[in-house]
């Protein structure tokens, strides 16, 4: 039985559940508290000692990540004493830190930098020249690079492989100021969620081989989206940037917390799926290997519609947005075409696991089912209009709406991929989520909705 009690933090009263962690309340109420080791997914470890607060009746400052909410508790998170404690501990954290921010990929999103701006900013007392030297470039595997000197030994990464993936690849070896993160000799970091340790790492010790040195984080714009790698619907941030004279490019996907869907993490395959999105993008309208203009294409489209009047099949990709699927259904009704979206093609049992990965790799298949669209493979038809479905189907003539290049297709109409437009998808658990448009390409292509409007007029 949970019991709500009143707690006073910095003279303000809050309601909190008795017995829960104080740091959770501070984080929830956005009360500034520095911490490295605590993480809501990994629990308290109490090693960084940064989240010190003063509690009425306690002689010494206490760490908020190991303090449980009690009725009438009085907490001070600011004040001279507490700031001094945080400053002193931060100073110790920095004593063996290489301070190589100019070449560190974490710069700009580094807790150590942030806390230094909050609690540091003093003249260095460090008068000993020799810092502890460690390895600067360790390839841990799974795209993760380790810089042991930058590490603050918060043990988030080791706790992740112990508690979350249960794979135990990472550990801390050595004692005292020579302690460092490492794998077992000859072993690699190797699990399908490994790259989450990069996000977990509060400093620049663990960086992504895929992202590092490609972009400074302060140049990136961030958009909320949903991964389309499978039907799980993991929430992500899309970090992209359009550099001067260049195209808008995605630099990385990062997990976005959603306790109802993916929690804190995403799988590596989903994380790296942004690459395929940007490669071989279909940008031109092609008819029989010739690039044609839009007017010409619409005319050809209508000619085909008239020719095959009663013998038309429309195939829908189960990754399209719900708005798009509904619009295609309406359009199909208007032209009297039969509609289907074969789902079996997307299934990949090998991909499935018991964490986040779903065997059904069509992000919006639930909508196909909800709208009662035929999921069988269509019989051979006269004209087949394929809205980006990956399957191959028999027909006399085909019109292919494609996000990506397709050498087999004769008549291709380019459509925008999900990162170039906005819309909703429904995941396998029936949760409907919004994906926001991330990219504004130099050479934009119409969305499905725009195409449908064009061919109607």
């Amino acid at each position: 039985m949970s019991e709500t009690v009143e707690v006073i933090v910095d003279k303000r009263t809050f309601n909190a559940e008795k017995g829960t962690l104080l740091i959770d309340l501070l984080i929830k109420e956005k009360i500034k508290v520095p911490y490295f080791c605590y993480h809501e997914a990994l629990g308290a470890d109490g090693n960084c000692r940064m989240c010190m607060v003063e509690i009425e009746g306690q002689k010494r400052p206490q760490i908020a990540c190991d303090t449980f909410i009690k009725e009438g508790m009085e907490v001070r998170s600011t004040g001279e004493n507490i700031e001094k404690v945080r400053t002193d501990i931060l100073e110790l954290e920095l004593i063996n830190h290489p301070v190589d921010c100019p070449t560190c990929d974490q710069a700009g999103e580094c807790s150590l930098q942030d806390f230094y701006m909050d609690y540091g900013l003093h003249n260095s007392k460090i008068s000993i020249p020799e810092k502890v030297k460690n390895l600067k470039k360790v390839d841990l595997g799974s795209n993760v690079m380790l810089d042991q000197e930058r590490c603050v030994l918060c043990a988030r990464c080791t706790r992740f492989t112990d508690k979350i993936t249960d794979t135990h690849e990472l550990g801390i070896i050595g004692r005292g100021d020579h302690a460092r993160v490492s794998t077992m000799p000859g072993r690699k970091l190797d699990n399908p969620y490994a790259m989450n340790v990069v996000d977990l790492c509060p400093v620049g010790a663990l960086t992504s081989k895929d992202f590092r040195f490609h972009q400074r984080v302060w140049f990136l714009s961030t958009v909320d989206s949903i991964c389309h790698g499978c039907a799980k619907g993991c929430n992500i941030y899309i970090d992209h940037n359009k550099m001067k004279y260049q195209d808008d490019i995605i630099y990385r996907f990062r997990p976005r917390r959603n306790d109802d869907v993916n929690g804190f993490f995403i799988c590596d395959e989903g994380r790296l799926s942004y690459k395929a999105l940007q490669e071989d993008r279909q940008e031109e309208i092609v008819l029989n290997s010739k690039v044609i203009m839009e007017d010409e294409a619409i005319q050809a489209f209508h000619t085909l519609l008239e020719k095959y009047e009663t013998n038309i099949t429309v195939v829908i990709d189960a990754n399209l947005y719900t708005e798009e699927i509904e619009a295609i259904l309406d359009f199909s009704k208007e032209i009297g075409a039969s509609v289907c979206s074969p789902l079996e093609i997307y299934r990949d049992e090998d991909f499935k696991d018991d964490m986040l990965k779903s065997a059904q790799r069509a992000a919006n298949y639930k909508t196909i089912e909800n709208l009662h669209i035929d999921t069988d493979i269509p019989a051979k038809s006269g004209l087949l209009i394929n809205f980006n479905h990956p399957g191959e189907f028999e027909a006399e003539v085909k019109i292919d709406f494609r996000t990506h290049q397709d050498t087999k297709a004769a008549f291709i109409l380019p459509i925008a991929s999900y990162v170039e437009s906005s819309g909703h998808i429904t995941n396998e658990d029936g949760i409907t989520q919004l994906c926001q448009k991330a990219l504004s390409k130099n050479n934009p292509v119409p969305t499905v909705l725009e195409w449908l409007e064009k061919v109607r007029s």
Partner: protein
Amino acid sequence: MRECKIVSRKFELENSFTLEVSKANGGYKTLEKLKEYSPTDIIQIIKDANLRGKGGGGAPAGAKWELMPQKSDKPSFLAVNCDESEPGTFKDRQIISKDPHLLIEGILITCYAIKAKHAYIYIRGEYYQYQQVLQSAIDEAYEAGLLDACDITIHRGAGAYICGEKSALLESMEGKRGHPRLKPKQKEPEWYFGNPTLVNNVETIATVPFIVENGADAYKAYGTEQSPGTLLFAMSGHIERPGVYEAEFGTSMMEYINHYGGGIKNGKKLKALIPGGVSCGVLNAREVENLTLDYEALRGIGSSLGTGGMIVMDEDTCMVTALKNILEFYHEESCGQCTPCREGTGWVDKLVGKILDKRGSKEDIDKLLGIADTMNGKTICVFAPSVSTVIVSCIERFRDEFEGAL
């Protein structure tokens, strides 16, 4: 000075480590007596005797035993702490090498009281030869059928100082890195793989047979009111006859040093003394003069009795070098879990090194005190606060030497 041999009674006998000699001299006699008592009776006797933990903390043992569940669907365990890594301390090894059967007897009584069927002895890896003696005693006990009700297993540590901290000891026994655990907010036993576990020092357990055999009052006849009984005090350093000698609490420190240790080596004068392993604050000669060996007296002057392993330093000792020696040890042994300790121990070690190299400045001395303050009371275990105590006590008492070394 009153002779009092509770734990060290059989130490001088020839082949005292064998079951034969032990039994011939009253070993395992209390096992018969156990039948008269219920487990809770035993705990009451230990509480009545006010037996205090002899591993350094001096916390009442009975209260700790009481935390163990008498009824539980989980198995209970006893873990005997024989990590003995505190510099200046070498008493437990006397027990396991000279009278291991006393320890086994104590374990059997304790396990009976806390209803444990399995006891582990966590022994530091460096004690290989002592472990051999202990193991052969355990083997003898098994053969004699003494261990039918309770198993005893020796677990060798890999040489980390911090594994003497009870929760780090259990982490190590579970096969993990020896990192101290976060302290529970309420009184509860320790946990070994999630099972209730009692952790006690070797000497504490070895004292149990005497108390059960002779009663609480017999034990309380020794020592002071608040620190009853005896302790295997030890001496090392600049002393004529260093070693382990059992004495009752409340004994005068100088008398002990002169009586058993034969005074300061080569007739020199005492300069400084660390009372109970290096984790306790350093004392100067004047403070030691009228000091008695009990928990209260030492706490009263801002130090602690610790394990009772005294390190004696004569007038020729350089206190900066002594501090450097201690800090090197801490620098090496910090487990590296909490930031203040991990980074602080290295920093203070290097700073004192700098002062020793004549590269230091007056600011460095104040800086040392500042870092000591940061390390105090902000970590999971008491390692860093101990380092802090050592630095502060040393600089406070011998500041002129530090300034002279600049």
